[in-house]
């Protein structure tokens, strides 16, 4: 359980840093994405049993919260993939560093900007909706650290 919590904390802190290229700089914004992708995949994989439960549950027995989370998490996943992929296509640091011309179109540039801003809002909702779980598990790992 504590691994999941630590991965989630790393994911959130990493996401905040990634979402502020004006603060961290474009080079950090792009290179840190490379480190962020495995953390994002680990977040999904570590919660895989919850995901399969939510998706396999009998439709008639599904609560409104489960239905909401299911649809919302799909939107969040799609948004995360779009913002990451479009980010690589409009790269100003990584691709040029490797001698690749990013050949960005305004379609991908607009997609990156719009999906990036929208995603911050969606992540805010995601964190707030799961806040009881986050609070519960952070308080669970705190005493175990004190006794270690």
């Amino acid at each position, binding site marked *: 359980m504590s691994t999941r919590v630590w991965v989630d904390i790393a994911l959130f802190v990493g996401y*905040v840093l990634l979402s502020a290229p004006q*603060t961290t700089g474009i080079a950090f914004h792009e290179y840190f994405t490379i480190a962020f992708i495995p953390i994002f995949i680990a977040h999904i994989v570590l919660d895989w049993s919850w995901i399969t439960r939510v998706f396999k549950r009998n439709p008639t027995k599904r609560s409104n919260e489960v239905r909401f989370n299911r649809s919302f998490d799909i939107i969040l996943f799609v948004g995360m993939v779009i913002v990451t992929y479009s980010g690589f296509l409009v790269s100003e640091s990584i691709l040029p560093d490797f001698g690749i011309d990013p050949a960005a179109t305004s379609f991908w540039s607009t997609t990156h900007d719009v999906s990036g801003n929208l995603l911050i809002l969606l992540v*805010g909702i995601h964190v707030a909706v799961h806040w009881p779980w986050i609070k519960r598990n952070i308080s669970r790992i705190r005493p175990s650290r004190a006794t270690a």
Partner: protein
Amino acid sequence: MKPWLSRNTMPIVLVLVASALVVGAFEAIDAFAGESPQLVNEASGAEPAGVASVGGLIKVAAFLGIGALIAKPIRSRFSGQASVQE
């Protein structure tokens, strides 16, 4: 590390396949939109400077805060209990 990977191969593959599908769909939209490449904006690649650079973090905090506020009515509408994630 290896047992963890082999245990979780299926979800990892599914995540990658789902990502590829999303990318494919957006590439199709891009092909439909059909635009020629534009020059990368030199100015936008400039490194941030001074107090103005904090604006990026303020924006993220504000957007996350608005998201959290939106989540309040969502939580009261969709749940009577704590998060289902166990």
